[in-house]
């Protein structure tokens, strides 16, 4: 699978290069391919007793107190190329200082956008891409323009969800031209999300800006069941690798979105990776993970914008254990957030409240994945220039996770971080 993903990325990069050559010979004005190179760096002040999840702990933030104050968050390279006027290539790669796979692929897909011949607009994606679920992550490189961190829901999507498959979207204006009502139906079939749920179960929710890359292995906290020598560890490495394909069965994502004239939108969606929870390979178990999502976005008076996402689902793995009354690990999860934002003359202020929980439904001893918590985020974003963005964010996460007691820590934790981040577009070039 890793080889396949590398092949997809390489193929699209080659396609991009080919299109670059083709368009070098095309008439002026017809070569709309673009390169973006962006550097994100921040100064971080953390107040937390937790070990950060990227350092193998149960912290909710990207950083902990042992991390350097100066953080090289991301070097992002995004390529958009044109194979034909309706067939586009999109490749996103990045490097992060806290990544395990060096310079790695985030997304790589072809997008076919046939020119509409009727009120029906069809859009297709083929390759490796994010699911069409986040309201927040709409900027280049799947970043959020509203803050530095993403909500707990979208942080989890960044950690464990990317699709390797095909997506079809049908958009139609209801009520004819000029009507404010538009409906979008979307569906995707994909491979490559079989271990998705591993981090959510054993590490829990997070609130940060770290996106997992395709070939990355992420640390798991060494809770008693994940220590060397346990039965779980016979097939589970001490890491999570969310995008592997283990059972060779496709999952699906389907949803419906109604939009009202850039004033309001409502989306409902269901994701189901349709994974066989009894398979394992390459140090990873298959996790049968599904969830439903409701997402809402509304423009309010005084130029305020409101958005909210709510997600509820279940993830489980292993054989059915009669004395547990469930599979080996079985967790319900739920999260929602509400966000208020205001943009004026390049200055943006955002307030976000997150609530999240995991309910442990299995009887596996020393593997309590129960969790509850909330987070408050205050962010100020200033677009100093088209290529330079300054962001300041204060984030506090309160969480209760009994598994912390395995490490002699209180189950309750409050983590606070202040970050000052510069996003600098070193190159934003369209041929």
């Amino acid at each position, binding site marked *: 699978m890793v080889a396949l993903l590398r092949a997809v990325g390489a193929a699209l990069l080659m396609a991009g290069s080919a299109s670059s050559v083709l368009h070098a010979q095309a008439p002026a004005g017809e070569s709309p391919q673009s390169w973006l190179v962006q550097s994100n760096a921040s100064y971080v002040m953390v107040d937390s007793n937790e070990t950060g999840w990227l350092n193998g702990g149960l912290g909710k933030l990207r950083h902990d107190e042992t991390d350097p104050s100066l953080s090289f968050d991301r070097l992002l390279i995004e390529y958009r190329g044109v194979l034909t006027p309706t067939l586009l290539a999109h490749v996103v790669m990045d490097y992060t200082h806290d990544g395990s796979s060096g310079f790695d692929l985030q997304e790589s897909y072809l997008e076919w956008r046939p020119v509409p011949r009727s009120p029906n607009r069809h859009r297709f994606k083929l390759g490796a891409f994010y699911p069409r679920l986040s309201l927040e992550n709409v900027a280049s490189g799947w970043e959020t323009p509203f803050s530095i961190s993403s909500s707990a829901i979208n942080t989890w999507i960044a950690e464990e969800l990317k699709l390797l498959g095909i997506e079809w979207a049908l958009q139609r204006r209801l009520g004819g031209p000029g009507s404010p009502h538009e409906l979008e139906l979307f569906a995707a079939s994909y491979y490559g999300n079989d271990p998705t749920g591993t981090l959510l179960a054993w590490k829990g929710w997070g609130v940060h800006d770290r996106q997992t890359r395709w070939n990355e292995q992420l640390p798991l906290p060494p809770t008693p069941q994940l220590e060397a020598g346990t039965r779980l560890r016979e097939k589970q490495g001490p890491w999570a690798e969310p995008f592997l394909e283990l059972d060779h069965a496709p999952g699906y994502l389907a949803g419906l979105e109604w939009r009202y*004239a850039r004033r309001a939108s409502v989306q409902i969606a269901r994701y189901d990776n349709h994974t066989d929870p009894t398979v394992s390979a390459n140090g990873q178990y298959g996790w049968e993970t599904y969830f439903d999502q409701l997402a809402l976005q509304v423009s309010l008076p005084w130029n305020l914008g409101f958005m909210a996402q709510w997600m509820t689902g279940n993830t489980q793995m292993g054989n059915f254990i009669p004395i547990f009354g469930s599979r080996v690990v079985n967790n319900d999860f739920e999260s929602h957030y509400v966000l208020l*934002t205001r943009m004026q003359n390049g200055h943006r202020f955002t307030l976000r409240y997150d609530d999240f929980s995991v309910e442990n439904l299995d009887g596996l001893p020393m593997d309590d994945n129960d969790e509850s918590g909330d987070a408050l985020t205050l962010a100020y974003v200033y677009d100093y220039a088209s290529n330079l963005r300054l962001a300041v964010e204060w984030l506090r996460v309160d969480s209760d996770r009994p598994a912390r007691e395995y490490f002699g820590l209180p189950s309750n934790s409050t983590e606070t971080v202040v970050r000052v981040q510069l996003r600098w577009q070193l190159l934003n070039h369209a041929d």
Partner: protein
Amino acid sequence: MDASNQSLRPCACLAALAACAGLSVEAQPASLTTVISDRNGHAVEEVVVYAIAADGGASAPVTDFSEPLVMNQQSEQFRPHILVAQTGTTISFPNGDTVAHHVYSFSEPKRFELPLYQGTAHPPVTFDRPGVIDVGCNIHDHMEAHIVVVDTSYFATTGADGRAEISNLPSGNYTVQIYSPRLRAADHPAPQGIAIADNNEALLQIQLEARLRPPHFSETESLNWSRY
């Protein structure tokens, strides 16, 4: 074509309708100023107003077709959002953005496509049939515009004050029609009859009775409506 396809009606009938609609006519010629307000009395911007001579003679083309009209693309928006033109007019679609656009329309009066481009890579498009042409960008689904092609050279579009002035109008009897994508086809007021005499200025006030759809785009939006 929505409203502009509605059949013309006798002036007497129109006068009665005009009275019902709160229309007042001050008979003065040479120019016609139309003021359009919503049902709360607020001015309505970007409404196309056009006058067609009742006998057909006075609307003989006077448009200079040598220079195309322009519909720009700036900041991923068509500007203007609504453009009115006489039948036979050519319109160019220069892309002023650094990103490429792919302009198209599947509207019956003029199906066309300007494949992915920047700058002025494509020649202007001639609009040779009357009607409303809805324009979009195949790359940026949120971009939309409307071109209103009319069989007359007497037209204007309301500004922020709700006023549209048609000047150099020869004397005669006209029917005045309006078009706005913010009105459903059935909610457009019936064509209004008006008599224009030499050297006078006419004022037509139209208060829309139907609820308006929200404007397509706001310059100050705090949210992003494009999905990644």
